[in-house]
C-alpha cells in the first residue's frame, strides 16, 4: 500500500514537471497559482494542521512578505529574490509580536482574533500606513526576478521557480513533521494539558508554529510580488485567508499531499468551471460542500508517523 502511494506521488510529480511542455500558457499559469497556494497551504498547515490552532488570518503574514519585497525593490532597488530572506524574517517577526498576546486564546476566539488581524492589516494597507504601502493603489512596477542573470517572466519560467520552491518546502516540512518538533505540535493539537504535563512547553511551540508558518508565507509573498509586479490590498483580504484555510481542511489537515491536492481543487476548480460562465462560483461552492461531505476528514488525511520496526515485535 505504501509503495503504491509513493508510486502515485512520483508519477504525479513527473507529470507536473513535464506539464509545461504540453499545456498552454494559461494552464501553466493556473498551475503557478496552484503552486503558490500549495506553499501557502503548507505553511498554514503547520499552524492549523499540525498544531491544531484555528487561524484564519494567514494572509496578514503573506501581505507583510509581499509588501516588504515590493518596498525593498521599488524604493531601494533590491533585486526581488534577494528580498526574500528579509521578507520571510519580517513576516516571522510580525507573527512573533502579534501572536504573543493572543496565543493563549482557544478555538473560535483565536479564530476571530486572527480574522481581526488580517482585517486590521488590510485596512492599514489601504490607509497607507506609515506612508509606505501606497494605499489602495498598492505598489506597482516591481521587477521580475532574476536568477544568475536569467530573467524570469513567462508563465513556464515562473512554473519552475514556484514548483522548485514547493519541492523544497515539501522536503523540509516532511522532515519537520517527522521530528521532535512536529510531534510536539501534534501533542499540542491532541491534548494541550497532557502535552504540557508531558513536559512540552506548549506556549513556546504555539508561537514557534506561528512564526515558521509566517516566515514561509512571507517568503512566498516575495514570489507573488515578483509574479504580479503589483501588490495591492485586494490580494490580501480576509477571503484570501479563507481560501488558504479551505485548502488545508479540504485537502486533509496535517497531511502534506492532502494540502497540495487541496490547492489543486480550491484554486483549480474555479478555473475548470469557467465554462459555466456566471455560475462558475456556484458550482464551486456546491463542490466544496460535497467534497467535504464525502471526505469528512479531508481528501487525503494524514497517515500515522512511521517508526523503525520494533525488532521485539514478532
Amino acid at each position, binding site marked *: 500500500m505504501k509503495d503504491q502511494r509513493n508510486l502515485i506521488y512520483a508519477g504525479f510529480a513527473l507529470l507536473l514537471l513535464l506539464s509545461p511542455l504540453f499545456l498552454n500558457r494559461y494552464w501553466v499559469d493556473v498551475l503557478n497559482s496552484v503552486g503558490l497556494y500549495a506553499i501557502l497551504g503548507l505553511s498554514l498547515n503547520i499552524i492549523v494542521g499540525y498544531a491544531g490552532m484555528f487561524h484564519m488570518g494567514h494572509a496578514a503574514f503573506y501581505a507583510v512578505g509581499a509588501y516588504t519585497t515590493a518596498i525593498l525593490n521599488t524604493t531601494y532597488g533590491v533585486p526581488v529574490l534577494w528580498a526574500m530572506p528579509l521578507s520571510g524574517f519580517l513576516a516571522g517577526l510580525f507573527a512573533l509580536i502579534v501572536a504573543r498576546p493572543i496565543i493563549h486564546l482557544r478555538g473560535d476566539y483565536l479564530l476571530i*482574533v486572527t480574522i481581526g*488581524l488580517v482585517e486590521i492589516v488590510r485596512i492599514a494597507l489601504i490607509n497607507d500606513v506609515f506612508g509606505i504601502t501606497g494605499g489602495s493603489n498598492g505598489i506597482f512596477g516591481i521587477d521580475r526576478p532574476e536568477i544568475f542573470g536569467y530573467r524570469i517572466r513567462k508563465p513556464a519560467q515562473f512554473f519552475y521557480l514556484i514548483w522548485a520552491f514547493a519541492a523544497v518546502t515539501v522536503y523540509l516540512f516532511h522532515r519537520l513533521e517527522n521530528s521532535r518538533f512536529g510531534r510536539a505540535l501534534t501533542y499540542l493539537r491532541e491534548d494541550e494539558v497532557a502535552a504540557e504535563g508531558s513536559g512540552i512547553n506548549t506556549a513556546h511551540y504555539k508561537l514557534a508554529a506561528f512564526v515558521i508558518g509566517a516566515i514561509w508565507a512571507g517568503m512566498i509573498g516575495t514570489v507573488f510580488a515578483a509574479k504580479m509586479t503589483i501588490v495591492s490590498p485586494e490580494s490580501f483580504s480576509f477571503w484570501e485567508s479563507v481560501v488558504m*484555510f479551505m485548502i488545508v481542511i479540504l485537502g486533509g*489537515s496535517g497531511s502534506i499531499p492532502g494540502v497540495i491536492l487541496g490547492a489543486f481543487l480550491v484554486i483549480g476548480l474555479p478555473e475548470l468551471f469557467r465554462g459555466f460562465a456566471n*455560475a462558475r*462560483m456556484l458550482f464551486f461552492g456546491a*463542490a466544496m*460542500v460535497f467534497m467535504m461531505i464525502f471526505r469528512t476528514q479531508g481528501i487525503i488525511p494524514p497517515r500515522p508517523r512511521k517508526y523503525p520496526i520494533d525488532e521485539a515485535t514478532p
Partner: protein
Amino acid sequence: MEQFFQQLTNGLAVGGIYALIALGYTMVYGVLKLINFAHGDLFTIGSYLGLTLLTSMALTDKLGPFFGILLLAVMVMILVGIVGILLDQVAYRPLRESPRLSAVVSALGASIFFQNTIMLIYGASFHVYPQNILPRMVVNVFGLHIPMIRILVLLASVVMMLALYTFIQKTTIGTAIRAAAEDQGAAKLMGIDVNGVIMIVFFIGPALGGAAGLMVGLYYGQVNFTMGWIYGLKAFTAAILGGIGNIPGAMVGGILLGVIEALGAAYISIAWKDAIAFLVLILILIVRPTGLLGERVAEKI
C-alpha cells in the same frame, strides 16, 4: 456632547441588527459548536425574499403598514428557517462526527453557493425596496434627530431578542435546547431528542437572521447579493465579543459593536473604524479570553 448622543443612537441602531444576526450564530454554536459561516447569506436570502413577497403580494396595501409588515416578517422568518433546516441537513448533518473544521469548510462552501444562487436568480445589480412603506417621521428629543424608523428597528430587535430569551428560559423546548447545549450526551440520556433540538435551532437562528435581512431592506432600502458577507462577519464578531454560545452575550456584543463602530468613526477615524472595532475586540479577548459574558470554564484536570 450632543454629537456623542447622536452617535450613540446611530450605533444602537446598527448594533441592534448585528445583535439579531449574532443570535443565529450563537444559538447554532451553542448546540453544535459550529460556526455557521453561511449564516450571513441566510440573512441576505431573508432580505431578498422579503422584497419579492412585498412587491408581489402587496401586503402593506391590503393590510396596512403594521399588519402587512408583521405578516411579511412571519412569512420571511418561516421560509428562511426552512432554508436553514435544509442547509443543516445537507451540509452539516453528515459532518456531525467529523473534525470541527470540516464543517466550517462546508459552511464556507455553502456560503459561496448561496451567494451565487442569489446572484443568478435576482441578478447582480442592487435591488431596492419600495419607498415610503413605513412612515418617514423624525423624532426630535433633546436636540437629537432620530428617524422614527430607527426606533422601530431597534424596538423590533429588542422585542425579538426578549421573546427568544423568554422562549429559551421558560419553555420546555427552550430547556431542551439549553440542555443539549450544555452536554449533548447527557441530554440524549435524559430522553431529549437532540436531532429535533438541532432542527429547532437551525430554524430559529436563520429565522432571526432572515428577520434582520428584512429589517435591513426596509430600513436602508437597498440590498445586494454580497451584503451577507460583511454583516455575517460583523455579527460573528459580535457573538464572540459577547461570548459565543451565550444568548444575552450575543445581544450585548452586537449592541456594543455597533456603538464602538459609531464612536470609533466619530472620534478617531472613519477609515479605520473597522480596524478599531477589531482592536477593541482583541483587547477585550486578551483580558477576558471567553468574551464578555462567556463562561470562564477552568478546565478540569
